[in-house]
Protein backbone atom coordinates (compact mmCIF):
# COMPACT_ATOMS: atom_id res chain seq x y z
CA UNK A 1 0.00 0.00 0.00
CA UNK A 2 1.53 3.29 -1.00
CA UNK A 3 1.57 6.35 1.25
CA UNK A 4 -1.32 8.11 -0.52
CA UNK A 5 -3.55 5.07 -0.32
CA UNK A 6 -2.74 4.57 3.35
CA UNK A 7 -3.32 8.24 4.13
CA UNK A 8 -6.68 8.26 2.33
CA UNK A 9 -7.84 5.27 4.30
CA UNK A 10 -6.94 7.15 7.47
CA UNK A 11 -8.71 10.42 6.65
CA UNK A 12 -11.73 9.78 8.85
CA UNK A 13 -9.73 8.18 11.65
CA UNK A 14 -7.41 11.17 11.63
CA UNK A 15 -10.32 13.57 11.77
CA UNK A 16 -11.92 11.59 14.59
CA UNK A 17 -8.62 11.52 16.48
CA UNK A 18 -8.42 7.76 16.38
CA UNK A 19 -4.86 7.43 15.13
CA UNK A 20 -2.09 6.35 17.45
CA UNK A 21 0.63 8.91 18.02
CA UNK A 22 3.06 7.41 15.51
CA UNK A 23 0.34 7.03 12.86
CA UNK A 24 -0.77 10.59 13.48
CA UNK A 25 2.76 11.91 12.99
CA UNK A 26 3.20 9.87 9.80
CA UNK A 27 -0.18 11.05 8.50
CA UNK A 28 0.63 14.70 9.22
CA UNK A 29 4.04 14.37 7.54
CA UNK A 30 2.44 12.86 4.45
CA UNK A 31 -0.14 15.64 4.20
CA UNK A 32 2.62 18.18 4.53
CA UNK A 33 4.20 16.91 1.35
CA UNK A 34 1.17 15.76 -0.66
CA UNK A 35 -1.15 18.50 -1.87
CA UNK A 36 -3.69 16.03 -3.30
CA UNK A 37 -4.16 14.17 0.00
CA UNK A 38 -4.18 17.48 1.85
CA UNK A 39 -6.99 18.67 -0.39
CA UNK A 40 -8.93 15.45 0.24
CA UNK A 41 -8.49 15.94 3.97
CA UNK A 42 -9.74 19.52 3.74
CA UNK A 43 -12.71 18.25 1.75
CA UNK A 44 -13.57 15.77 4.50
CA UNK A 45 -13.21 18.50 7.10
CA UNK A 46 -15.52 20.76 5.08
CA UNK A 47 -18.14 18.02 4.92
CA UNK A 48 -17.74 17.46 8.63
CA UNK A 49 -18.23 21.16 9.25
CA UNK A 50 -21.37 21.09 7.10
CA UNK A 51 -22.73 18.06 8.95
CA UNK A 52 -22.21 19.84 12.25
CA UNK A 53 -24.86 22.31 11.06
CA UNK A 54 -27.49 19.55 10.89
CA UNK A 55 -30.59 20.08 13.03
CA UNK A 56 -30.71 18.32 16.39
CA UNK A 57 -34.19 17.20 17.28
CA UNK A 58 -34.90 17.64 20.98
CA UNK A 59 -36.83 14.97 22.84
CA UNK A 60 -40.38 16.28 23.30
CA UNK A 61 -41.35 16.67 26.95
CA UNK A 62 -44.49 14.58 26.54
CA UNK A 63 -42.43 11.72 25.11
CA UNK A 64 -39.91 12.02 27.95
CA UNK A 65 -42.78 11.71 30.41
CA UNK A 66 -44.25 8.73 28.58
CA UNK A 67 -40.88 6.97 28.55
CA UNK A 68 -40.30 7.68 32.24
CA UNK A 69 -43.73 6.23 33.02
CA UNK A 70 -42.96 3.27 30.76
CA UNK A 71 -39.72 2.34 32.53
CA UNK A 72 -41.25 3.06 35.94
CA UNK A 73 -44.21 0.85 35.08
CA UNK A 74 -41.94 -1.97 33.99
CA UNK A 75 -39.91 -1.76 37.19
CA UNK A 76 -43.02 -1.53 39.31
CA UNK A 77 -44.57 -4.45 37.42
CA UNK A 78 -41.63 -6.70 38.25
CA UNK A 79 -41.55 -5.42 41.80
CA UNK A 80 -45.27 -5.93 42.14
CA UNK A 81 -45.04 -9.57 41.18
CA UNK A 82 -42.38 -10.13 43.81
CA UNK A 83 -44.12 -8.10 46.41
CA UNK A 84 -47.54 -9.66 45.85
CA UNK A 85 -46.05 -13.16 46.02
CA UNK A 86 -44.30 -12.35 49.27
CA UNK A 87 -47.44 -10.79 50.63
CA UNK A 88 -49.44 -13.91 49.90
CA UNK A 89 -46.86 -16.04 51.60
CA UNK A 90 -46.57 -13.88 54.62
CA UNK A 91 -50.24 -12.89 54.65
CA UNK A 92 -49.09 -9.69 56.25
CA UNK A 93 -50.54 -7.08 53.97
CA UNK A 94 -54.03 -6.76 52.71
CA UNK A 95 -55.25 -6.60 49.19
CA UNK A 96 -54.68 -2.86 49.08
CA UNK A 97 -50.94 -3.34 49.21
CA UNK A 98 -50.90 -5.28 45.97
CA UNK A 99 -52.71 -2.46 44.24
CA UNK A 100 -51.51 0.67 46.00
CA UNK A 101 -47.83 -0.12 46.51
CA UNK A 102 -46.97 -0.81 42.88
CA UNK A 103 -48.96 2.22 41.78
CA UNK A 104 -47.19 4.44 44.28
CA UNK A 105 -43.84 2.98 43.36
CA UNK A 106 -44.52 3.57 39.67
CA UNK A 107 -45.69 7.11 40.28
CA UNK A 108 -42.75 7.91 42.54
CA UNK A 109 -40.19 6.45 40.16
CA UNK A 110 -41.81 8.27 37.24
CA UNK A 111 -41.56 11.57 39.08
CA UNK A 112 -37.96 10.85 40.10
CA UNK A 113 -36.91 9.96 36.60
CA UNK A 114 -38.70 12.83 34.89
CA UNK A 115 -37.27 15.35 37.30
CA UNK A 116 -33.95 13.64 37.70
CA UNK A 117 -34.40 13.84 41.45
CA UNK A 118 -32.56 11.30 43.52
CA UNK A 119 -31.38 9.45 40.46
CA UNK A 120 -28.14 7.52 40.87
CA UNK A 121 -24.92 9.22 39.87
CA UNK A 122 -23.36 5.99 38.60
CA UNK A 123 -24.06 6.54 34.89
CA UNK A 124 -22.36 9.94 35.04
CA UNK A 125 -19.35 8.51 36.86
CA UNK A 126 -19.08 5.65 34.36
CA UNK A 127 -19.39 8.07 31.47
CA UNK A 128 -16.73 10.39 32.90
CA UNK A 129 -14.24 7.54 33.36
CA UNK A 130 -14.95 6.08 29.92
CA UNK A 131 -14.49 9.49 28.29
CA UNK A 132 -11.26 10.00 30.21
CA UNK A 133 -10.03 6.63 28.92
CA UNK A 134 -10.81 7.78 25.38
CA UNK A 135 -8.59 10.80 26.01
CA UNK A 136 -5.81 8.61 27.41
CA UNK A 137 -5.93 6.10 24.58
CA UNK A 138 -6.00 8.85 22.00
CA UNK A 139 -9.44 7.87 20.77
CA UNK A 140 -10.30 11.45 21.51
CA UNK A 141 -6.97 13.26 21.63
CA UNK A 142 -6.32 16.93 22.02
CA UNK A 143 -7.62 18.79 18.98
CA UNK A 144 -6.26 22.18 19.93
CA UNK A 145 -2.89 22.48 21.60
CA UNK A 146 -2.78 24.86 24.47
CA UNK A 147 -1.14 28.22 24.44
CA UNK A 148 -3.32 29.06 27.45
CA UNK A 149 -7.02 29.14 28.21
CA UNK A 150 -7.49 32.19 25.98
CA UNK A 151 -6.39 30.12 23.04
CA UNK A 152 -8.31 26.98 23.97
CA UNK A 153 -11.69 28.50 24.89
CA UNK A 154 -12.23 30.42 21.63
CA UNK A 155 -11.53 27.21 19.74
CA UNK A 156 -14.83 25.81 21.06
CA UNK A 157 -16.83 28.68 19.51
CA UNK A 158 -19.20 27.29 16.89
CA UNK A 159 -18.48 23.71 17.93
CA UNK A 160 -20.76 23.68 20.97
CA UNK A 161 -24.22 25.05 21.73
CA UNK A 162 -22.91 26.62 24.94
CA UNK A 163 -19.81 28.48 26.06
CA UNK A 164 -17.77 26.52 28.61
CA UNK A 165 -17.22 28.63 31.72
CA UNK A 166 -13.65 28.17 32.91
CA UNK A 167 -11.14 30.73 34.05
CA UNK A 168 -8.25 28.58 35.20
CA UNK A 169 -5.57 28.71 32.53
CA UNK A 170 -3.28 26.14 34.09
CA UNK A 171 -0.18 26.74 36.18
CA UNK A 172 3.09 25.04 36.97
CA UNK A 173 1.42 22.35 39.03
CA UNK A 174 -1.40 21.71 36.55
CA UNK A 175 -0.38 22.88 33.05
CA UNK A 176 -3.23 23.00 30.53
CA UNK A 177 -2.43 20.72 27.60
CA UNK A 178 -5.31 21.63 25.31
CA UNK A 179 -8.91 20.90 24.45
CA UNK A 180 -11.18 18.70 22.39
CA UNK A 181 -14.85 18.00 21.78
CA UNK A 182 -16.21 14.87 23.42
CA UNK A 183 -19.60 13.25 23.66
CA UNK A 184 -20.85 13.09 27.24
CA UNK A 185 -23.86 10.76 27.51
CA UNK A 186 -26.02 12.22 24.72
CA UNK A 187 -24.54 15.68 24.35
CA UNK A 188 -21.38 17.44 23.37
CA UNK A 189 -18.86 18.40 26.00
CA UNK A 190 -15.86 20.68 26.02
CA UNK A 191 -12.86 18.66 27.14
CA UNK A 192 -9.92 20.34 28.84
CA UNK A 193 -6.82 18.25 29.44
CA UNK A 194 -4.47 19.09 32.30
CA UNK A 195 -1.29 17.40 33.44
CA UNK A 196 0.12 16.87 36.90
CA UNK A 197 3.60 15.35 36.77
CA UNK A 198 2.99 12.11 34.84
CA UNK A 199 -0.77 12.12 35.42
CA UNK A 200 -3.42 13.34 33.01
CA UNK A 201 -6.68 14.91 34.17
CA UNK A 202 -9.69 15.40 31.90
CA UNK A 203 -12.29 18.01 32.65
CA UNK A 204 -15.59 17.62 30.78
CA UNK A 205 -17.92 20.62 30.70
CA UNK A 206 -21.45 20.04 29.38
CA UNK A 207 -25.03 21.20 29.67
CA UNK A 208 -26.47 19.43 32.71
CA UNK A 209 -30.14 19.88 31.87
CA UNK A 210 -31.95 16.60 31.40
CA UNK A 211 -29.25 14.45 33.01
CA UNK A 212 -30.05 12.43 36.08
CA UNK A 213 -27.81 14.57 38.20
CA UNK A 214 -27.06 13.33 41.72
CA UNK A 215 -28.80 15.31 44.44
CA UNK A 216 -26.44 13.96 47.06
CA UNK A 217 -23.20 15.88 47.48
CA UNK A 218 -20.35 14.86 49.76
CA UNK A 219 -17.76 17.58 49.46
CA UNK A 220 -17.18 21.26 48.90
CA UNK A 221 -15.47 22.25 45.66
CA UNK A 222 -14.58 25.90 46.09
CA UNK A 223 -17.85 27.60 46.86
CA UNK A 224 -19.81 24.79 45.21
CA UNK A 225 -20.92 21.37 46.37
CA UNK A 226 -19.95 18.27 44.52
CA UNK A 227 -19.76 14.53 44.57
CA UNK A 228 -16.61 12.40 44.65
CA UNK A 229 -16.12 8.82 43.58
CA UNK A 230 -13.23 6.42 43.17
CA UNK A 231 -13.66 3.64 40.64
CA UNK A 232 -11.45 1.50 38.43
CA UNK A 233 -8.40 3.28 39.83
CA UNK A 234 -9.67 6.72 38.86
CA UNK A 235 -10.90 9.55 41.03
CA UNK A 236 -13.92 11.47 39.80
CA UNK A 237 -15.35 14.79 40.95
CA UNK A 238 -18.75 15.95 39.72
CA UNK A 239 -20.24 19.36 40.30
CA UNK A 240 -22.70 21.78 38.78
CA UNK A 241 -22.44 25.51 38.31
CA UNK A 242 -25.66 27.07 37.08
CA UNK A 243 -26.76 25.08 34.03
CA UNK A 244 -23.38 23.50 33.32
CA UNK A 245 -22.11 20.21 34.64
CA UNK A 246 -18.44 19.47 35.30
CA UNK A 247 -16.75 16.09 35.53
CA UNK A 248 -13.08 15.93 36.49
CA UNK A 249 -11.31 12.57 36.18
CA UNK A 250 -7.77 11.44 36.81
CA UNK A 251 -5.66 8.75 38.42
CA UNK A 252 -3.73 11.40 40.34
CA UNK A 253 -3.79 11.58 44.11
CA UNK A 254 -7.28 12.59 45.39
CA UNK A 255 -5.80 15.56 47.26
CA UNK A 256 -4.08 16.82 44.12
CA UNK A 257 -7.29 16.37 42.16
CA UNK A 258 -9.18 18.32 44.82
CA UNK A 259 -6.60 21.14 44.49
CA UNK A 260 -7.13 21.20 40.75
CA UNK A 261 -10.93 21.28 41.24
CA UNK A 262 -10.51 24.14 43.67
CA UNK A 263 -8.53 26.11 41.09
CA UNK A 264 -11.06 25.31 38.38
CA UNK A 265 -13.95 26.70 40.41
CA UNK A 266 -12.22 29.89 41.49
CA UNK A 267 -13.55 32.96 39.73
Amino acid at each position, binding site marked *: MNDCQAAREQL*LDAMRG*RLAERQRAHFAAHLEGCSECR*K*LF*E*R*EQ*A*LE*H*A*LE*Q*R*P*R*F*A*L*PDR*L*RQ*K*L*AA*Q*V*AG*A*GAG*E*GAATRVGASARRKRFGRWAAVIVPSLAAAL*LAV*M*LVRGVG*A*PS*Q*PLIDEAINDHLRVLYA*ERPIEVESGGIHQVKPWFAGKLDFAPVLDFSGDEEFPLQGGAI*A*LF*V*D*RKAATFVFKHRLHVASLFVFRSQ*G*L*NWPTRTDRAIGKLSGLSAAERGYNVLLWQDRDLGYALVSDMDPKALARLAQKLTER
Partner: protein
Amino acid sequence: MRCYAESMRGESTGSESLFAARLLDQAGALYNFARYLCRDPAQAEDLVQDAFTRALDAQATFVVGSNVRAWLFRILRNAFLDAKRRERKNPLIQLEDSDDQPAPSDLWLRGDIEIDRLRRLVARDIEAALSRLSDDGRSVILLDLEGFTETEIASVMDTAVGTVKSRLARARATLRQELQEYAK
Protein backbone atom coordinates in the same frame (compact mmCIF):
# COMPACT_ATOMS: atom_id res chain seq x y z
CA MET B 1 -19.24 -11.91 32.21
CA ARG B 2 -22.58 -11.56 33.95
CA CYS B 3 -25.87 -10.83 32.25
CA TYR B 4 -28.13 -8.23 33.79
CA ALA B 5 -30.46 -10.81 35.33
CA GLU B 6 -27.56 -12.47 37.13
CA SER B 7 -26.25 -9.19 38.39
CA MET B 8 -29.68 -8.32 39.73
CA ARG B 9 -30.05 -11.47 41.75
CA GLY B 10 -30.23 -10.57 45.38
CA GLU B 11 -29.81 -6.87 44.73
CA SER B 12 -32.24 -4.14 45.54
CA THR B 13 -34.53 -2.28 43.19
CA GLY B 14 -31.89 0.46 43.12
CA SER B 15 -30.25 -1.45 40.26
CA GLU B 16 -33.54 -1.44 38.37
CA SER B 17 -33.65 2.32 38.78
CA LEU B 18 -30.08 2.47 37.49
CA PHE B 19 -31.05 0.58 34.35
CA ALA B 20 -34.08 2.85 33.93
CA ALA B 21 -31.90 5.92 34.36
CA ARG B 22 -29.48 4.62 31.74
CA LEU B 23 -32.35 4.15 29.30
CA LEU B 24 -33.65 7.65 29.93
CA ASP B 25 -30.17 9.16 29.60
CA GLN B 26 -30.12 7.91 26.01
CA ALA B 27 -33.68 8.92 25.15
CA GLY B 28 -32.68 12.24 23.59
CA ALA B 29 -30.02 10.74 21.33
CA LEU B 30 -32.34 7.87 20.37
CA TYR B 31 -35.14 10.27 19.48
CA ASN B 32 -32.80 12.38 17.34
CA PHE B 33 -31.64 9.25 15.51
CA ALA B 34 -35.26 8.10 15.12
CA ARG B 35 -36.27 11.46 13.64
CA TYR B 36 -33.65 11.10 10.94
CA LEU B 37 -34.58 7.48 10.27
CA CYS B 38 -38.36 8.05 10.10
CA ARG B 39 -38.36 11.64 8.86
CA ASP B 40 -41.64 12.04 10.74
CA PRO B 41 -42.04 13.25 14.36
CA ALA B 42 -45.01 11.00 15.23
CA GLN B 43 -43.38 7.89 13.78
CA ALA B 44 -40.15 8.75 15.56
CA GLU B 45 -42.00 8.93 18.89
CA ASP B 46 -43.64 5.56 18.25
CA LEU B 47 -40.27 4.09 17.30
CA VAL B 48 -38.55 5.28 20.48
CA GLN B 49 -41.40 3.91 22.61
CA ASP B 50 -41.20 0.60 20.75
CA ALA B 51 -37.43 0.52 21.32
CA PHE B 52 -37.92 1.19 25.05
CA THR B 53 -40.45 -1.64 25.27
CA ARG B 54 -38.02 -4.00 23.56
CA ALA B 55 -35.12 -2.84 25.76
CA LEU B 56 -37.14 -3.38 28.93
CA ASP B 57 -38.24 -6.82 27.72
CA ALA B 58 -34.63 -7.71 26.91
CA GLN B 59 -33.23 -6.19 30.11
CA ALA B 60 -32.39 -9.61 31.53
CA THR B 61 -30.16 -10.42 28.56
CA PHE B 62 -28.15 -7.21 28.67
CA VAL B 63 -24.55 -8.03 29.55
CA VAL B 64 -23.31 -5.88 32.40
CA GLY B 65 -20.27 -3.90 31.37
CA SER B 66 -21.10 -3.95 27.67
CA ASN B 67 -21.93 -0.84 25.69
CA VAL B 68 -25.47 0.13 26.68
CA ARG B 69 -25.56 2.94 24.11
CA ALA B 70 -24.70 0.68 21.19
CA TRP B 71 -27.17 -1.91 22.54
CA LEU B 72 -30.00 0.63 22.61
CA PHE B 73 -29.24 2.06 19.17
CA ARG B 74 -29.19 -1.47 17.79
CA ILE B 75 -32.59 -2.18 19.34
CA LEU B 76 -34.01 1.02 17.90
CA ARG B 77 -32.65 0.35 14.44
CA ASN B 78 -34.00 -3.21 14.48
CA ALA B 79 -37.40 -1.84 15.52
CA PHE B 80 -37.22 0.56 12.59
CA LEU B 81 -36.37 -2.21 10.13
CA ASP B 82 -39.18 -4.40 11.51
CA ALA B 83 -41.64 -1.53 11.08
CA LYS B 84 -40.51 -1.04 7.50
CA ARG B 85 -40.88 -4.73 6.78
CA ARG B 86 -44.39 -4.70 8.21
CA GLU B 87 -45.20 -1.62 6.20
CA ARG B 88 -44.14 -3.25 2.96
CA LYS B 89 -45.58 -6.63 3.96
CA ASN B 90 -42.47 -8.21 2.62
CA PRO B 91 -40.36 -10.02 5.21
CA LEU B 92 -37.55 -10.50 2.75
CA ILE B 93 -37.21 -6.88 1.88
CA GLN B 94 -33.80 -5.90 0.57
CA LEU B 95 -32.15 -2.91 2.08
CA GLU B 96 -31.73 0.00 -0.25
CA ASP B 97 -27.98 -0.04 -0.15
CA SER B 98 -25.94 -2.42 -2.15
CA ASP B 99 -22.29 -2.69 -1.38
CA ASP B 100 -21.31 -3.01 -5.03
CA GLN B 101 -22.75 0.33 -5.98
CA PRO B 102 -19.93 2.58 -7.07
CA ALA B 103 -19.30 5.68 -5.04
CA PRO B 104 -20.47 8.77 -6.86
CA SER B 105 -17.89 11.00 -8.36
CA ASP B 106 -16.84 13.84 -6.09
CA LEU B 107 -14.37 15.58 -8.31
CA TRP B 108 -16.46 18.75 -8.09
CA LEU B 109 -15.37 19.29 -4.54
CA ARG B 110 -11.67 19.28 -5.04
CA GLY B 111 -11.41 23.00 -5.60
CA ASP B 112 -11.29 25.60 -2.86
CA ILE B 113 -14.41 27.35 -4.19
CA GLU B 114 -16.51 24.24 -3.71
CA ILE B 115 -15.16 23.74 -0.20
CA ASP B 116 -16.11 27.31 0.63
CA ARG B 117 -19.60 26.70 -0.73
CA LEU B 118 -19.92 23.61 1.41
CA ARG B 119 -18.98 25.57 4.49
CA ARG B 120 -21.84 27.99 3.86
CA LEU B 121 -24.59 25.38 3.83
CA VAL B 122 -27.33 25.79 6.40
CA ALA B 123 -29.12 23.30 8.64
CA ARG B 124 -32.11 22.73 6.36
CA ASP B 125 -29.82 21.94 3.42
CA ILE B 126 -27.99 19.34 5.47
CA GLU B 127 -31.24 17.80 6.71
CA ALA B 128 -32.58 17.63 3.16
CA ALA B 129 -29.41 16.02 1.88
CA LEU B 130 -29.41 13.49 4.73
CA SER B 131 -33.05 12.64 4.03
CA ARG B 132 -32.15 11.74 0.44
CA LEU B 133 -29.67 9.09 1.54
CA SER B 134 -30.72 5.45 1.81
CA ASP B 135 -31.68 4.18 5.27
CA ASP B 136 -28.32 2.45 5.63
CA GLY B 137 -26.43 5.46 4.35
CA ARG B 138 -28.21 7.78 6.73
CA SER B 139 -27.73 5.36 9.63
CA VAL B 140 -24.01 4.98 9.13
CA ILE B 141 -23.49 8.75 8.78
CA LEU B 142 -25.53 9.56 11.90
CA LEU B 143 -24.01 6.82 14.03
CA ASP B 144 -20.56 8.06 13.02
CA LEU B 145 -21.56 11.60 14.01
CA GLU B 146 -22.91 10.25 17.30
CA GLY B 147 -19.34 9.28 18.11
CA PHE B 148 -19.64 5.53 17.63
CA THR B 149 -16.50 3.76 16.42
CA GLU B 150 -16.69 1.66 13.26
CA THR B 151 -16.69 -1.46 15.43
CA GLU B 152 -19.64 -0.13 17.42
CA ILE B 153 -21.48 0.86 14.24
CA ALA B 154 -20.92 -2.66 12.94
CA SER B 155 -22.52 -3.97 16.12
CA VAL B 156 -25.48 -1.59 15.86
CA MET B 157 -26.05 -2.42 12.20
CA ASP B 158 -25.28 -6.10 12.58
CA THR B 159 -22.67 -6.13 9.85
CA ALA B 160 -18.92 -6.40 9.37
CA VAL B 161 -16.50 -3.57 10.13
CA GLY B 162 -15.29 -3.63 6.54
CA THR B 163 -18.86 -3.13 5.34
CA VAL B 164 -19.23 -0.18 7.68
CA LYS B 165 -16.07 1.40 6.27
CA SER B 166 -17.25 1.02 2.68
CA ARG B 167 -20.80 2.19 3.49
CA LEU B 168 -19.47 5.20 5.32
CA ALA B 169 -17.15 6.17 2.47
CA ARG B 170 -19.95 5.70 -0.06
CA ALA B 171 -22.51 7.59 2.02
CA ARG B 172 -20.14 10.53 2.51
CA ALA B 173 -19.42 10.62 -1.21
CA THR B 174 -23.17 10.51 -1.97
CA LEU B 175 -23.76 13.24 0.57
CA ARG B 176 -21.14 15.45 -1.04
CA GLN B 177 -22.85 14.94 -4.38
CA GLU B 178 -26.26 15.74 -2.86
CA LEU B 179 -24.88 18.84 -1.20
CA GLN B 180 -23.45 19.99 -4.50
CA GLU B 181 -26.98 20.98 -5.51
CA TYR B 182 -27.55 22.95 -2.34
CA ALA B 183 -24.14 24.58 -2.36
CA LYS B 184 -24.55 26.19 -5.79
